């Protein structure tokens, strides 16, 4: 990849001059060392200046600077639509700058489906401010009042004549403050927002011209691989090196070992040599038997010492439960699940002398910069982190771990190092979505009104310390037991959509430092487990009350937005009312249908699943899933429908197939054979449904129908068989055992 695309050398004002082209994922090419040197410390862009957000170029194109990264969800296109709408330019005139600590405003991590919901209003306001300033200048130039001006395609028109944005400002700074007070376009005037414009990245992705992280190179770079035990052990135990046999890779003369503490890697000029060397290098690790093994996991969590907190306490649950016509109680189990990006994490770093450049696929360039600076012993201002898209990550996968590994290796060898995690590194050393145990009791009266809901949830929290850092510097690890990053029973998702006078939610925080796997946020964190328990419980009450499960839910919902998604999905699925399990088939393969509601924080999700169950083999096949999402104003309906399809497929995969297996010493799910995900032939037909009540602001659209889809499959299983599955994934073994 020899390219002279040394954009990094340009001062910011010239950055990506001549926009209009697709910029996200542009070629990093070969960057000359001189251009990488820091002339001076890069200043953090000041979010209070319009110039930190938007640049207007001489050729009448514009560049927008976002702090949110494209993870494959289409959010860059949506943000560009918002900016183009407010600026009155065409989408083809606007491009997004690569997210880079050198010039991107810090909008926080790209998590919780927050790009459009939270970053959207910010960039809209910035664009409005930019437009206001451009109109002020145009009015001056044309000698006409601002009120008489109109703008199309970045050209300001008046009776006196016209002038383009490029002529007004071409590559000069705005020099105006971002006050947030500039008037914004009313929604009734939107022409780009709400339209199905093609995503800006898709053509290049299909043509094969897109530059992924995995394509990035630097001159003189070495290929690096990490060397770790196959599959992590207990979090915090690290991977202690007892012995290293350097002769074991002597037959690969070009490869060399890099080591810092317990961090071991190999580097070589040729990638295949690095792969072979990592494979050949004999390391003796200490392998403590501190894990429970997957089979005993939930018992261990249930009997461990926990830190308990009351999340919701309303009314008198105990009394209501003892006096109600219908009571359902059960305990439900969810496994550890992996992010398992299709392409394992990759990063490229050059840490030479007193500065470092790290190119990677992090969800938060600023937080990672801090970590890298601390591990390399450099001031933060000497570390530059650039984002380049890799394979979709669905949360905190190994991208930061790989970035730190590349930085550490590069500093040790004094050359640029590209680290590509192998499949087993990514699956074996992931920050898994934590396992969960939920005990639930709920009651309804004889009219089918929910009168009580009690939920106890056991799980550990998130541990964001990266393995490379831990191994290299021996820093003691921690768990986010409280505050941001901790996990507590989600009160929105556990029955929050229903009205009940008595509700009690208790969180039992298990200590993640006592023999568990490393955990972090995985798309719609823990919601699949919550909904698997609570939505099956709602179905159970409907069954006892002899009500159709949709009718039961309607009787207990007051919020019109929850009703809206329920009605929409039921209509799309042509749902006919009947009690669950009242039409069970007799053959070997029987069918069932189920409904469920769910969300993450905001937005409203509902799903109907139609499945087949093979009673002999135990195989469940999801045939068709209808999934409705109300996420307020939709900027790009096509992109959001794509998200619904993706999260529904993933829900199917996770509820039917995915489980991280582990022994007493280590994780054993290390490839697509031992960590199976939903395959092409197994995918359900999916009908995505958008529900948009008027005048509602945009809210998250990347994960909010996932939990509903998973729970709808579980409810469909009961409808088909009359049996409840209390543990997922709902594998053939578990199905056969339940039906035996």
């Amino acid at each position, binding site marked *: 990849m020899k390219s002279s695309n040394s954009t990094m050398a340009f001062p910011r004002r010239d950055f990506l001059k001549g926009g209009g082209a697709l910029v996200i994922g542009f070629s990093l090419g070969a960057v000359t060392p001189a251009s990488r040197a820091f002339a001076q410390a890069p200043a953090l862009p000041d979010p209070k200046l319009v110039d930190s957000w938007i640049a207007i170029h001489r050729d009448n194109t514009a560049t927008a600077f976002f702090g949110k990264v494209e993870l494959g969800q289409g959010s860059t296109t949506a943000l560009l639509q918002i900016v183009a709408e407010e600026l009155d330019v065409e989408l083809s005139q606007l491009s997004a700058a690569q997210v880079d600590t050198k010039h991107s405003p810090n909008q926080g991590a790209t998590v919780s489906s927050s790009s459009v919901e939270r970053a959207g209003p910010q960039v809209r306001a910035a664009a409005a401010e930019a437009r206001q300033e451009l109109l002020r200048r145009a009015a001056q130039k044309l000698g006409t009042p601002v009120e008489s001006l109109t703008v199309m395609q970045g050209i300001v028109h008046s009776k006196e004549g016209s002038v383009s944005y490029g002529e007004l400002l071409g590559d000069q700074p705005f020099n105006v403050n971002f006050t947030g007070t500039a008037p914004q376009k009313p929604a009734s005037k939107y022409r780009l927002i709400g339209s199905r414009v093609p995503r800006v990245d898709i053509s290049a992705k299909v043509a094969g011209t897109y530059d992924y992280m995995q*394509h990035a190179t630097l001159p003189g770079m070495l290929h690096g691989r990490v060397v770790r035990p196959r599959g992590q052990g207990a979090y915090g135990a690290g991977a202690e090196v007892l012995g290293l046999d350097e002769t074991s890779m002597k037959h690969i003369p070009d490869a060399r070992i890099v080591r810092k503490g317990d961090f071991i890697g190999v580097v070589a000029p040729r990638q295949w040599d690095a792969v072979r060397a990592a494979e050949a290098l004999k390391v003796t690790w200490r392998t403590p038997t501190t894990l429970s093994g997957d089979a005993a996991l939930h018992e261990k969590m249930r009997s461990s010492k926990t830190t308990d907190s009351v999340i919701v306490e309303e009314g008198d649950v105990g009394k209501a439960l003892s006096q109600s016509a219908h009571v359902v109680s059960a305990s439900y189990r969810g496994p550890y699940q992996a992010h398992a990006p299709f392409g394992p994490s990759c990063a490229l770093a050059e840490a030479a002398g007193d500065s470092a450049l790290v190119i990677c696929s992090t969800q938060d360039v600023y937080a990672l910069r801090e970590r890298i600076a601390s591990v390399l012993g450099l001031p933060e201002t000497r570390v530059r982190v650039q984002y380049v898209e890799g394979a979709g990550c669905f949360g905190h996968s190994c991208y930061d771990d790989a970035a730190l590994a590349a930085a550490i290796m590069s500093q040790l060898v004094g050359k640029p190092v590209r680290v590509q995690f192998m499949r087993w590194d990514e699956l074996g050393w992931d920050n898994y979505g934590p396992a969960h145990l939920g005990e639930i009791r709920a009651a309804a009266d004889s009219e089918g009104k929910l009168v009580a809901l009690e939920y106890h949830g056991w799980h550990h929290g998130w541990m964001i310390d990266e393995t490379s850092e831990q191994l290299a510097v021996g820093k003691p690890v921690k768990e986010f037991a409280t505050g941001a990053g901790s996990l507590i029973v989600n009160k929105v998702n556990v029955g929050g959509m229903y009205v009940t006078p008595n509700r009690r939610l208790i969180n039992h925080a298990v200590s993640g430092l006592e023999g568990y796997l490393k955990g972090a946020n995985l798309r719609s964190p823990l919601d699949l487990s919550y909904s698997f328990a609570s939505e099956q419980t709602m179905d159970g009450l409907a069954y006892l009350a002899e009500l159709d499960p949709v009718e039961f839910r309607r009787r207990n919902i007051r919020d019109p937005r929850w009703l809206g998604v329920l009605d929409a999905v039921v209509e799309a699925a042509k749902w006919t009312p009947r009690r669950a399990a009242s039409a069970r088939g007799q053959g070997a393969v029987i069918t069932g249908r189920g409904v469920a509601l769910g969300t993450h924080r905001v937005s409203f999700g509902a799903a109907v699943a139609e499945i087949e169950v093979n009673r002999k083999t135990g195989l469940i096949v999801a045939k068709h899933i209808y999934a409705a999402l109300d996420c307020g104003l939709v900027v790009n309906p096509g992109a959001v429908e794509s998200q619904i399809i993706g999260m529904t497929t993933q829900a199917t995969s996770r509820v039917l197939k995915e489980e991280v297996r582990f022994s007493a010493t280590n994780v054993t799910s290390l490839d697509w054979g031992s960590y199976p995900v939903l395959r092409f032939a197994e995918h359900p037909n999916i009908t995505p449904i958008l529900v948009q009540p008027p005048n509602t602001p945009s809210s998250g659209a990347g994960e909010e129908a996932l939990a509903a889809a998973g729970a709808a499959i579980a409810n469909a299983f009961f409808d088909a068989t009359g049996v409840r599955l209390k543990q997922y994934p709902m594998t053939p073994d578990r199905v056969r055992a339940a039906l035996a």
Partner: protein
Amino acid sequence: MKINVNNEVREVSASPDTPLLYVLSDELHIKGPRFGCGLAQCGSCSVLLDGEEIRSCITPVSAVTGHSVTTLEGLPAFYAAEKKLPTVPALHPVQQAFIDEQAPQCGYCYNGMVIKAAELLSHTPQPSEAEIRSAMNGHLCRCGTYPRILKAIEGASRAMTGALK
């Protein structure tokens, strides 16, 4: 060693046991096939070898000498030759269909999806849904875009057979 990639004979210096994938990526700077598992389990590294889809991550480069390798980059020309078109289109019809459906999310798996779908349509111009599902079953998509891929392949099949009539 000389290998034929996209109708060009290229001299490569890798050791004969090197997987074709690393030669394509690192020596020939070809971006289509890319690393996903290295275990022939996912389809990320797929290329055509004499028109048949193979996994370049486990195929030693020495095994392809004397054969012709087509990557994503060479697919439109391969298609033009196959259909005896007077000019090489910018995209294979299946690529156009993936764009029309706005199918990809991260798009990382689409090298394999395009290669496999092109192979399928070349052997079976009008596949049934079941045939598509079974042909594509060795290609994973973690973003879960299977439904749009299925629709796009059906669309490409219609476009291609319609165009030939």
